[in-house]
């Protein structure tokens, strides 16, 4: 099997922002248990910025590491900026992912988008 970067392993063993949020402003869940990965993102929004973010992930090392990394990347950002974060950027921030694991980074991007969409829907700001 192809090796993970040190950064992937570091995020896998010490994931940032793991947990749930009782008073989340938006929740997004992406992935499919059939394929072996599900990611749930919770966001707290204040002044159009992601004030806090938490995640829970069922999946492989890459799924956990990309979840952790994306939460760090979007925390404190405006919603517009957060929506611009791509899966490539997440993978790059982790010093790359093995080719077979690239699809895991799609989940990270999709998870953030789903949580923001949920927030906008709840607040009548759906575009």
């Amino acid at each position: 099997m192809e090796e993970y970067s040190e950064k992937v392993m570091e995020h896998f063993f010490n994931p940032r922002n793991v947990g749930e949020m009782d008073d989340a402003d938006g929740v997004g869940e992406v992935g499919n248990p059939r394929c072996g990965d599900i990611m749930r993102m919770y966001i707290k929004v204040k002044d159009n910025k992601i004030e806090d973010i938490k995640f829970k992930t069922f999946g492989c090392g890459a799924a956990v590491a990309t979840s952790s990394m994306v939460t760090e990347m979007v925390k404190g950002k405006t919603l517009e900026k957060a929506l611009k974060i791509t899966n490539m950027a997440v993978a790059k921030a982790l010093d790359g992912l093995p080719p077979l694991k690239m699809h895991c980074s799609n989940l990270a991007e999709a998870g953030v988008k789903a949580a923001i969409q949920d927030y906008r829907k709840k607040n009548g700001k759906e575009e």
Partner: protein
Amino acid sequence: MDKTIYLDNAATTKIDKEVIKAMLPYLTDQYGNPSSIYSLARESKKAIESSREEVAKAINAKPNEIYFTSGGTESDNWAIKGIAFANENKGKHIITTNIEHHAVLHTCKYLKKYGFEVTYLPVKENGIVDINELRKAIREDTILISVMFANNEIGSIQPIKEIGKIAKEKGIYFHTDAVQAVGKIPIDVNELNIDLLSLSGHKLHGPKSIGALYIKNGVKISNMLHGGGQERKMRAGTENVPSIVGLGKAIEIATENINEKNEKIIELRDILINGLLEKIPDTILNGDREKRLPGNVNVCFKYIEGESILLMLDMKGVCASSGSACTSGSLEPSHVLLALGLEHEIAHGSLRLTLSKYNTQKDVKYLLEILPEIVQKLRDMSPLINQN
């Protein structure tokens, strides 16, 4: 933890020191080609024939029924394609199971291109073939039944004796992929009515890339490799003398006092199985509790994913394997676990631990200490469990 705890003996095994000792002369001074006539070559020839005797003895076959190959995969390919192509005038139907190794499944799939039809027998929840399903599947044009002796993932031991009996009654050739079983449980090809049997060296503390196919005298089979006259003109190519010697030694050691040695491995296995089921809630044991290889443990931990478990175990020095999609390089979990009727998300959380003679009580105890924590850590992260 500076020591490696190796619990992946179904993948491969550590080579026995005695095996290396036996091989060494053939990697150094005894390099003669067994097909040549001078005395240096005769030594190589003698070594091969004595290894052939050891392999034959291990499964109660005759030495002239043993053909050396490059391993389990080649043996399976040869047995299935060789029987198919040599007997297609009699019929083009093959029966196998849906839990076979890919060496068998993909070979059968390949044969479909040549007009062969394949029936894949389902297994029961315990991973064992239903003999009634086999009886129902047999047709006039069935030429081969191929059922593995014991499964590589879940360790379930198949009803080989019954299958052999049925195959013999119906006049159908019976092949068994015994890669996981030889050297682990006693096998007698005559008593079991086996016509063809695949075995591999590196699963029984021998070298890699060496195996054998047992072909009962009188079985009609085609060659797969064409060239020189080695292996009684059945399998061309200069013999891998050192590895053949290694296989002979390894199989001799493995089958010596097999029941006695198994007692110790079974004891460790049962401590592990009982400990995991007791200490970790929502754990499922895969495969049959009794009809199981001595060294096989396979469980599913609900709500978590297998690769994550393996990474955490690796961090603690433990080598193991999983049937999750992420460890197979596809999006599907193991076909064997799905054949048991497990849900996809449960199959993704599988862990296989396979023991050998080198494992100790200490290894098992250590695992039972660290695994509950690992499972808990991953479950704390899992969205499949609702908080509180």
